């Protein structure tokens, strides 16, 4: 049994894409509609149709070797079952896109190890599935180093006078301070106001900026820990003041730099997709990071972008229109 989730402007289009990815006929799948398409306001918040297709006949690609190599890594995952299923999907997808011949099923007999090698080779860099831990660490280190060199375009000023700070932001700073204390993190919180953001709109002007040394563990892989910290701080502060507390949280300009890095990555991967005439898969990212990729490439006439996969494995694919 294989499963894919695909999106499209309408349900039919989403199903069609899924069938292509699975390389099966309509009668061989069960279709679940996960999200109906909807039109957003001012082009924001519009949602594509999202469907899940599950094959009813097990395809030949079910390889025990491959699955067991996945299981080794599930220890650090939260959803091992989902993980396995995702990986099988990837197998199917990888195969279908290989050599640009969607109908070609040759080579399916290869073992897990070989499969893995090919995959790394084909994807390279930040696009691999995240299975190989040392590769992943290497890539993370490279991205962090690259990040260091990026100049954030946003300009902020520290606001020290409490009277100038909205209640929600002040409560947010107190909440964050408590959270950090319980996490045994020694750092300073500076309340800042964003006064300029290059050519970009300032969505939320208030920033709780965590300053200190060696705060990498507050950021986490692809900013996961920082997102969690921001989510909980805003939730608790909002509950406290009984209305929405609006601020963002950053650690040593990480978000500001990461945004620029993601934009650069989006552009170069789009170029790669067009040049090679094939779909490029990015590494799994948080919803906010995926949004930055989609927004960056929205105006690009040569590619379309889609998110696929579930939960922590959800990632952006860049599809050239000339494919």
């Amino acid at each position: 049994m294989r499963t894919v989730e695909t999106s499209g402007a309408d349900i039919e289009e989403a199903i069609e894409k899924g069938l292509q990815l699975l390389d099966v006929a309509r009668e061989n799948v069960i279709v679940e509609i996960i999200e109906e398409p909807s039109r957003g306001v001012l082009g924001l918040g519009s949602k594509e149709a999202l469907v899940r297709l599950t094959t009813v006949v097990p395809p030949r690609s079910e390889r025990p070797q491959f699955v067991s190599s996945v299981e080794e890594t599930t220890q650090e995952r939260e959803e091992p079952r989902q993980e396995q299923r995702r990986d099988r999907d990837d197998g199917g997808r990888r195969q279908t896109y290989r050599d640009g011949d969607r109908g070609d099923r040759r080579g399916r007999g290869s073992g897990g190890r070989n499969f893995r090698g090919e995959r790394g080779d084909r994807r390279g860099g930040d696009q691999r599935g995240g299975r190989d831990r040392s590769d992943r660490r290497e890539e993370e280190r490279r991205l962090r180093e690259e990040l260091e060199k990026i100049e954030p375009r946003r300009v902020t000023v520290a606001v020290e006078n409490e009277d100038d700070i909205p209640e929600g932001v002040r409560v947010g700073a107190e909440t964050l301070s408590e959270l950090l204390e319980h996490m045994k993190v020694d750092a300073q919180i500076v309340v800042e106001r964003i006064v300029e953001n290059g050519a970009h709109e300032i969505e939320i002007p208030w920033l709780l900026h965590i300053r200190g040394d060696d705060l990498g563990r507050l950021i986490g892989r692809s900013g996961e820990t920082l997102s969690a910290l921001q989510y909980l701080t805003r939730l608790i502060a909002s509950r406290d003041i009984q209305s929405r507390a609006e601020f963002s949280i950053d650690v040593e300009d990480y978000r500001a730099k990461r945004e620029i890095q993601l934009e650069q990555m989006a552009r170069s991967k789009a170029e790669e997709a067009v040049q090679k005439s094939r779909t490029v898969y990015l590494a799994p990212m948080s919803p906010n990071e995926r949004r930055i990729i989609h927004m960056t490439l929205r105006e690009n006439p040569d590619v379309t972008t889609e998110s696929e996969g579930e939960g922590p494995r959800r990632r952006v694919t860049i599809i050239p229109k000339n494919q």
Partner: protein
Amino acid sequence: MKELVEYVAKSLVEDPSEVRVEVFEETRMILLRLTVAPDDTGRVIGRDGRVAQALRSLLRSMASKTGKRVTLKIS
């Protein structure tokens, strides 16, 4: 870790007096069990489990130094 879970839970529930956190620590893992009043369960899990997920992220970050695995159970 206990304090962190307690703080977050007490900040979100209606009845903080019912918040209990038990910690079971073993050589390779730490298990935290959070118990809240039945009506408050949804508040500490969050929509689509987001609160629980965020808490787990913070716990993982704290545990990364020790090399132990952290599990958070909510009941």
